[in-house]
């Protein structure tokens, strides 16, 4: 069902965990499909220095959270804001059709985290 890259992220997710004292936190939840994602970011000089995630959800949800964190680490906030859920799916080499909409929300969570960070400044 999932391709190798998705399975690799699913098995060895990067940047898992809660962050102590995060600069911003974003959470999206989709109770229909049962996925909840929480993204924590640490920002310095407008650059995402560190990122962590917690995810309750299926394989696609976990893999896209993991992939996203790798994609944005070291990026500026404005660059990070340009990343879409679709980009994450592409980075993963594609996701099964039924998963595209309900389990691929990591970019949304990131954008919320950036909003949260900016609101706090």
């Amino acid at each position, binding site marked *: 069902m999932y391709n190798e890259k998705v399975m690799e992220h699913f098995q060895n997710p990067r940047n898992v965990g809660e962050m102590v004292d995060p600069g911003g936190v974003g959470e999206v939840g989709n109770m229909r499909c*049962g996925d909840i*994602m929480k993204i924590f970011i640490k920002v310095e000089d407008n650059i995402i220095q560190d990122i962590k995630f917690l995810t309750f959800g299926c394989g696609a949800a976990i893999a896209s959270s993991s992939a996203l964190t790798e994609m944005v680490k070291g990026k500026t906030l404005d660059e990070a804001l340009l990343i879409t859920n679709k980009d994450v799916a592409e980075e993963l080499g594609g996701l099964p059709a039924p998963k595209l909409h309900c389990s691929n929300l990591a970019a949304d969570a990131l954008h919320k985290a950036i909003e949260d960070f900016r609101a706090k400044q």
Partner: protein
Amino acid sequence: MKRIYMDHGATTPMREEVLEAMLPFLGEKYGNPSSLHFFGRESLKALDVAREKTASCLGCAPEEILFTSGGTEANNLAIIGVAKGSPPGKNHIITSAVEHHAVLDTVKFLGKSGYDITILPVDEYGMVSPQQVEDAITEQTILVSIMTANNEVGTIMPFEEIGGVCREKGVYFHTDAVQAIGHIHFNLQSQPIDFLSLSAHKFYGPKGVGVLYQRRKTKLEQICYGGGQERKLRPGTENMPGIVGLGKAIELAVANMPANREKLLRLRDQLIPGLLRIGDVRLNGHPEKRLPGNINVSVLFVEGESLLLHLDLKGIALSSGSACTAGSLDPSHVLLAMGLDHQTAQGSLRFTLGRDNTPEDIDYTLEAVRETAHNLRAMSPIYRK
């Protein structure tokens, strides 16, 4: 990798004795049982034997057995066939909220086609009571369809009592026994059941063949049109290897029932306490009135598909009521009907044990579930340590 199959509710490996019985009909005994000649007569005889075996396992007459392409078709034929054959004015059908989709969606289809339908709610264990059925029956009721045992949570319905209520009220009673056969004893001559569905691949038989038992003198219309096979009620050239395999499989399933039951209960009584010891794990379904091989639990704070994927990577095959595994938007309609919230339903795991499972399999599985639950909870935003 060693693989442990614990998804016998989805399908079972075929027994070697069944394959052996089928092989001649996949080879030199290829006649069409409708043919007059030697090849046809040879097949017709085997068809009769399979029908007699099936009937004797169910305690009914061979003429009461209709072979179908599976459990789904058996359910459709029973429900739509009774509805089509019902006298004018009789247009009410009763079922339960926890039926398999092959019953539930069929009844809902009739609901959209002008029939009155009642879908009975269930209690926290997934059970319907005879009283509920009695209260729901009206002058217009023609059919009550309540499964013998639930495929997801294993709960065994009070099907004989429900059948008794139906008999008393003069209403047909159909029961989907797809999961029950081989675990529950049937003697249809004395049980108040008018229609009963089976699917061979659930009891170590072949895929693509099933049975509808139809009590003598009940009225059933065909839902498919064509040749005269199966008393015209199920036309089409008979799936001879499948039917012969079903005959062998049901014979073995019924003969081995006591030994198999004992074995499954022992494994189950090893698995359930082990799962509960993991912590934040709840058992779904009835604590006692359940199929011996079925263990359905919710692993709280994690989602089913990710559990399944990790367990699959460890070689363990099972299923979940999570929405993601069903390819649907909502988790299991059975768990929701039992009152579970979405989150708990999402974290459900169904183990359905079978004849090849061992105590070592259970130990390995328990360790795997414990580890997986721990790792997934560590990344769960809703888990509170």
